[in-house]
């Protein structure tokens, strides 16, 4: 660093400009305007917000779209179209019909047996090795009733390389004979034998997200489920918030003995495993949307009550409340007009964070079999159904899983953004 030489001539006196000092450079912002401005500039919040809007709009119009286009409803079964995937393929299935040749540790087919894997194969002896390609019963998706047999003879001098070559050559011969065969490929990767049949692939035009095990349209069921999941989540959060605000507000405002008793009750209720009351309440009532919402409210309001109480305790000795009291405002007015509006920030954040919790809780209940009754769909019951046959038809779990995760993701990010925006200390 060099020392700078400064002398008085470097500076000029600009004088006072009273007019400029009195001018308001920026328009004055109310608290909520400021919050809105900060939210608008937060890209993550904007993106999550739009994701949620899209999910909610789709839940409203999704079932209507497919109903008007194809006549799908959430409960209409069509056993001829069961377990369709979003991307259809007419590749034929592969069945092992004769095998003198190799042993294997495990047989892993994909959901339509159009690709199968034999794990840790070992050559055993010479003899016949045969596969059946295609299956008459699978007509609906393979497009015809054709079946083919692919058989080779394996001799003692054969190695895996020559066996795979022989199999592929036989496959090509069958294809040359009849182009409807569509082709097959054998490959040995490491110690595994992998067989895959070829076929055309196309997008499932009538069932965009595929179908479930009863042939019900998953697209329709997903958004129908969204209606139920969102409805349960919103209604429970709304009631929870009202009850929590009243309980916490009274407890915090009254203080002393009342506060002690009310908070002890909350503490006791919070130590009870939620699951217990949930399951007990659900067995007392018939399953449906109403009991699930009630259960979520009963187990959820304590957190909100605590937050509100904390905020009220903090605010009730602030100057403006004391001023209002001095002016003769009664308790009701102070709580409703002063305390609650000023605790809105944390409450809004809490509500935003509660919604994904509610959706998760609903999914959890459906997963252990206490959710909405069949044939209704909620995201949880769809995920539960999908999880059972996940290995054969991954899309049936992935479709509701993506919807649930996307919703939780968006609500969590939105909640984070709101917390930052509502906190005046972070104001720039």
């Amino acid at each position, binding site marked *: 660093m060099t020392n700078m030489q400064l002398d008085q001539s470097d500076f000029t006196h600009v004088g006072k400009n009273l007019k400029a000092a009195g001018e308001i450079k920026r328009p004055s912002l109310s608290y909520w305007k400021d919050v809105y401005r900060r939210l608008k500039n937060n890209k993550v919040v904007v993106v999550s917000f739009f994701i949620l809007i899209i999910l909610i709009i789709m839940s409203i119009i999704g079932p209507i779209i497919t109903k008007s286009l194809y006549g799908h409803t959430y409960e209409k079964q069509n056993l001829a179209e069961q377990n369709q995937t979003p991307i259809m393929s007419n590749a034929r299935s592969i069945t092992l019909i004769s095998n003198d040749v190799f042993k294997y540790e495990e047989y892993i087919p994909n959901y339509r047996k159009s690709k199968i894997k034999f794990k840790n194969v070992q050559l055993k002896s010479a003899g016949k090795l045969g596969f059946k390609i295609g299956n008459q019963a699978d007509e609906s998706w393979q497009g015809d009733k054709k079946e083919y047999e692919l058989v080779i003879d394996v001799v003692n001098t054969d190695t895996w390389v020559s066996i795979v070559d022989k199999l592929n050559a036989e496959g090509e011969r069958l294809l040359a004979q009849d182009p409807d065969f569509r082709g097959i490929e054998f490959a040995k990767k490491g110690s595994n034998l992998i067989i895959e049949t070829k076929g055309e692939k196309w997008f499932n035009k009538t069932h965009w997200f595929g179908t479930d095990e009863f042939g019900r349209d998953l697209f329709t069921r997903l958004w129908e489920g969204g209606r139920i999941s969102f409805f349960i989540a919103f209604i429970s959060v709304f009631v929870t918030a009202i009850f929590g605000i009243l309980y916490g507000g009274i407890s915090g405002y009254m203080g002393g003995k009342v506060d002690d008793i009310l908070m002890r009750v909350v503490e006791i209720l919070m130590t009870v495993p939620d699951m217990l*009351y949930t399951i007990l309440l659900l*067995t007392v009532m018939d399953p449906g949307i109403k009991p699930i919402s009630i259960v979520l409210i009963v187990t959820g309001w304590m957190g909100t009550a605590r937050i509100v109480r904390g905020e009220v305790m903090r605010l009730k000795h602030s100057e403006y409340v004391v001023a209002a009291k001095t002016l003769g405002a009664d308790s009701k007015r102070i709580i409703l007009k002063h305390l609650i509006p000023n605790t809105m920030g944390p409450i809004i954040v809490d509500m935003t964070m509660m919604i994904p919790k509610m959706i998760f809780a609903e999914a959890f209940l459906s997963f252990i079999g206490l959710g909405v009754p069949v044939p209704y769909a909620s995201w949880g019951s769809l995920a539960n159904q999908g*999880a059972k046959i*996940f290995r054969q038809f991954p899309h049936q779990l992935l479709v509701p899983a993506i919807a649930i995760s996307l919703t*939780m993701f968006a609500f*969590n990010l939105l909640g984070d953004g709101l917390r930052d925006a509502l906190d005046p200390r972070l104001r720039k």
Partner: protein
Amino acid sequence: MLKYILKRLLMALGTLWVIATLTFFLMHALPNDPFTDPKLKPEVKQALRVKYGLDKPLSEQYIIYMKNIAKGDLGTSIKYPGRSVSDMIKQSFPKSFALGWRALIIAVVFGIFFGVVAALNHQKFLDYLSIIIAIIGVSIPSIILGPILAYLFGVQLGWFPVTVDKTQWSLILPSITLALSSLATISRLMRTTTLEVLGQDYISTAKSKGLSRYQIVWKHVLRNAIMPVITVLGPLFAALITGSIVVEKIFAVAGLGEYFVSTITEQDYPMIMGITIFYAALIILSILIVDIIYGFIDPRLRIAGKGGK
């Protein structure tokens, strides 16, 4: 301190009593009782009710049950005749616990690690990475994570067994499934508290003293930032216990969570009561222990406690 612990223990007992009473009456408010099988003859049902004391008035049943509990007797199961509830708990709880403590360790160790790394690299790549991991962690419920992990690592790659058997190896997937959301919670909390501590004056002092980065993080940052994390350990443990109900179902563990759901749907009164009281006691105790440990660890509380008396 001793007085404080005694007071807390008494309160815990009171809480347990309230919970037991609430559960008792809620349970008996169910429209059915354990003997609703239409194949049973009415005389047989009546005989069974007499055998299990269900024919007596509710208040009398309640008094009998409370007396037995005071003696430490949780009764015998109705659905599994001849087996005492405490035996069933003793048998199935270790399996749940094996998952629980592994998940807790995974969540705490990795959660703290991610949180500290994120805070030390504030607003850099690693920070954003750990925030993303944390948000994914809270966004993917275990009912989805479990089957997907089982499919990817169990079926496709074949690294781990899909169901839990006697090997240690098979516990890894379920423990991770159980741990993920808690891991995310801890890492978020740890990130916030570490950032707060990093802004404190004593960190600047430590830096100006010429301490190495390692010493600052290890001796000053970590020890102060970890405090709030310890307070959430109790509720976290409780969340892991209830969370394990789902995980046990996915990975076919014959643990307490599995029993819990089935006994409630089967209305096995003594089992419902026994498991509820056990769960509640476990949760209350873990929160209590964490509170006490916290009092010992935090020097500020220790000094304040002495000064007060």
